[in-house]
């Protein structure tokens, strides 16, 4: 089922999902928590990501998230998703700058 991941140089994978309670986009952090901010997302190599992804999916209910998957980011600080879709998930709708995720606590 799993599609092969081809990462360009300078790219890593992060895990993302939506929070069960409110549907908000969250990112998996190295301390095992899920956070609204992509800044804390753990940067993973492909094989690392595969193992963590299956563990995170098994634990999704307990962690209060749905639909866990991985996506490629540029490994900069903070990490920046490669696709427009994931950029919008990370930062919020482009048409409402006042809802920028960065400005939330």
């Amino acid at each position, binding site marked *: 089922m799993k599609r092969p991941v081809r990462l360009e140089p300078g790219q890593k994978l992060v895990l993302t999902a939506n929070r069960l309670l409110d549907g908000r986009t969250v990112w998996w952090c190295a301390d095992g928590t899920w956070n609204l901010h992509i800044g804390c997302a753990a940067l993973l190599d492909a094989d690392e990501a595969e193992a963590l992804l299956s563990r995170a999916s098994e634990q999704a209910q307990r962690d209060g998230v749905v639909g866990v998957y991985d996506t490629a980011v540029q490994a900069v600080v903070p990490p920046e998703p*490669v696709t*427009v*879709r994931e950029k*919008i998930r990370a930062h*919020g709708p482009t048409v409402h700058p006042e809802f920028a995720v960065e400005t939330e606590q």
Partner: protein
Amino acid sequence: MSIPVGHYQYDPIDRDFLQARIAEFEGQVQRRLDGTLSEDEFKPLRLMNGLYLQLHAYMLRVAIPYGILDSRQLRKLGEIARRYDRDYGHFTTRQNIQFNWIRLEDTPAILRELAEVDMHAIQTSGNCIRNVTADEYAGAAADELVDPRVHAEILRQWSTLHPEFTFLPRKFKIAISGSPNDRVAARFHDIGILARPGADGAPVFRIFVGGGLGRTPIIGEELFDSVREEHLLATLEAILRVYNARGRRDNIYKARIKILVQAIGVEAYREAVEAELAQMDLERYRLTPEAVAAIRSRFAVPQLEAPADADAVLAQQRRDDPLFDRWVRSNTHVHRDPGHIIATVSLKPAGGIPGDATSAQIARLADLADAYSFGEIRITHLQNVVLGHVRKDRLRDLWLGLSEVGLAEANIGLIGDIVACPGLDYCALANARSIPIAQKLGARFADTALQAEIGALRINISGCINACGHHHAGHIGLLGVDKRGEEFFQLTVGGRAENGAAIGTILGAALPEDETVDAIARLVDCYLGRRESGETFLDTLTRLGHEPFREAAYETV
């Protein structure tokens, strides 16, 4: 005002049903939260209650049956936007409203609040018969032959939780109009119904089947020319049965009725429906004049009284105020009563988000509806709002009131009246963002004098092939495509949803997002430069063919 005009009055049975349904959903949400239900198990249940999971949050789609609301209901929608969302709502092309920032745990409370004003989110999703849409000028327009709301309500009652049609092969959309001028895109629906008076005065119905947009756009074909009122429900039941039995369930992209009609041909479909009718108990489905009258009696009728000089007052005000005059020209429609007029409130401010309204605007619209239009509001399939019965001598006061909350844009039917789906800013299925392109086009053509000069020109934008923004039906259509993670737009021209329905023709290769607005501006310039007197964009396009427009769009300077 005791009972609101415009829509059907619920009775205790309807209300008990809604409460039972909410209690059921509340239990389902509880079981989802405690883990008894998995996401896979819960998803179809939440969709049946209008709750989607989008990119940033849950989205709740609330049904507005045939697009008609009373001010109390609209006020409630504004309160929900303020309390449970981020202070705004989005009106859709299916005359519904969507809230974009909903919390799962709040949903039962929101549904309770909606039920207080006889509203719900049932049949806004899933493979059932969806909310029936109707002409936004129903019961008001001078050109109307039959008020479609009574039959729209009959269809709503027939289709709500219809046990046989809860798990159709795919979603099913019905639209009904009673005007010779199709304002519901009847030929782009699974079933489109056009009502007209029959010889004996009772309405007869022309029925189209198998229209649709999406990845396979198809114009509906006429199944029957004149179905008598008493046989309307039996006929629809038979059409649905044939589809339910024979529509494809193996491939989601081939599951709509349009694919079945194309596969077997409309004649074979008609024969199958007739065969079904021949073995049905027609008596059970007979729509008697008494039954219709009983439904009609649940609609309060506005008492249309206007002073004798109402028309003269309006004429004078238009002469005195050119800005008001421009708004009247684009944003009103002739009412059946000479002292009244239909006003369309544009939710397309230049540079704004098509179809969005803030809770403050929603509240003001409710107040203005109370003051000027019997407390009745209609949502249009082009994402605007109609106040159906405004006294002519009070129209200017209404316009001034709208101006105070930024709702007096004079652009209905013009290039600024853009239809756009939520696109990649919200939608989990999107390829590209629809709203920013709409905003850029709106800003580019912000000048209302220029818009009036350009004349009738409809731009429709969808963020993916699902076509929620009806791009195939736009005079100019834009479809978002994804090329290696970048946003591109494919341009079509010549689509139309009104009489003479047509699917737009693709002009050429998709353009990068940042070249799209310029290309459209060149298309418009091409039309302005070459049109003959009195021609609209579609007229010029028809006369000249696509080639000059293709050249203009792809010309690189």
